[in-house]
């Protein structure tokens, strides 16, 4: 290469990229806030039915999933901290742990839903229409909508983290590619999404499992 060719300039502004991520997260908060508003309105209207229906939810499974998701947020923070220190191998391990905890959450949620389905409780099911009051039907409608929407976000978060894991593993294997700083910034944005999923569950858990 001749000396006349200028070095390629890669512009990075991690703070602005985080602002962009936060703006997206705020729209997600508004999406869930709309669902929470529906919950609040129907809870006021059918407080007795909500109280009764919530007792049928499995508190132990909800509690286990809360602990799993809180811990997955911790492993996410540790992954980003390791990447910031340039320890890609360690960052890959913590990112993998975060994805695994997300999978545990979904498996537990799957068992919980399967148990409800076996009892004939699913949206628009004949058993729900026949044996339950309108308030309980609304409760289960909100339960499936909100936990389903949240589970979808867990799946998306796991896919995002899996893509990040590929980049981190590549960085661990060679010193080539983007520097650890740039990768840490991207991992942090992925982490922000993962933490938001945790924040939403922090509100879902008491509203559905503890109000009885």
């Amino acid at each position, binding site marked *: 290469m001749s000396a006349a060719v200028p070095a390629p300039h890669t512009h990075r502004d*991690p*703070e602005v990229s*985080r*602002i962009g991520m*936060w*703006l997206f997260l*705020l729209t997600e*908060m*508004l999406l869930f*806030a709309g669902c929470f*508003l529906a919950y*609040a*309105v129907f809870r*006021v*209207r059918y407080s007795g039915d909500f109280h009764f229906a919530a007792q049928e939810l499995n*508190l132990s499974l909800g*509690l286990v999933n*809360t*602990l799993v998701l*809180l*811990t997955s*947020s*911790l492993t*996410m*923070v*540790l992954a980003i*901290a390791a990447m*910031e220190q340039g320890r890609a191998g360690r960052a890959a391990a913590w990112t993998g742990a975060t994805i695994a905890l997300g999978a545990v959450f979904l498996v537990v949620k799957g068992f919980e839903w399967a148990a409800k389905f076996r009892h004939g409780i699913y949206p628009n099911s004949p058993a729900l229409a026949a044996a339950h009051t309108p308030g309980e039907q609304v409760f289960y409608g909100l339960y499936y909508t909100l936990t389903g929407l949240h589970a979808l976000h867990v799946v998306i978060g796991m896919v995002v983290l899996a893509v990040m894991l590929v980049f981190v593993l590549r960085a661990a294997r060679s010193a080539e590619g983007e520097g650890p*700083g740039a990768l840490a910034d991207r991992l942090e944005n992925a*982490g*922000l999404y993962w*933490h*938001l999923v*945790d*924040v939403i569950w*922090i*509100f879902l*858990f*008491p*509203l559905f499992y*503890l*109000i*009885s």
Partner: protein
Amino acid sequence: MENRVHIPAGHVLTVWASLLVLTAVTVTVAGLHLGSFSVFTAIAIAAVKASLVLLFFMRLKVEPVIFRVMLLAAAATITVIMALTFADVAFR
């Protein structure tokens, strides 16, 4: 390079432990059957837990003030929407 203040690993572990303790507290309080008070405490504890995640795990504590302003704008919007909805629903 930006110069960011980092949250020490010890603080992160303390926050995680606090989140677990608060989870135990909210489950215990819910088991006491305190009526409408239990709904209030459940939501209050959830708000504290969410704040811990936002401040320490999502690092709002060490981000520039614009991040907190953005979040407060969204929170204020949600509060207004909820207040207006209940101003309608409560008086039908």
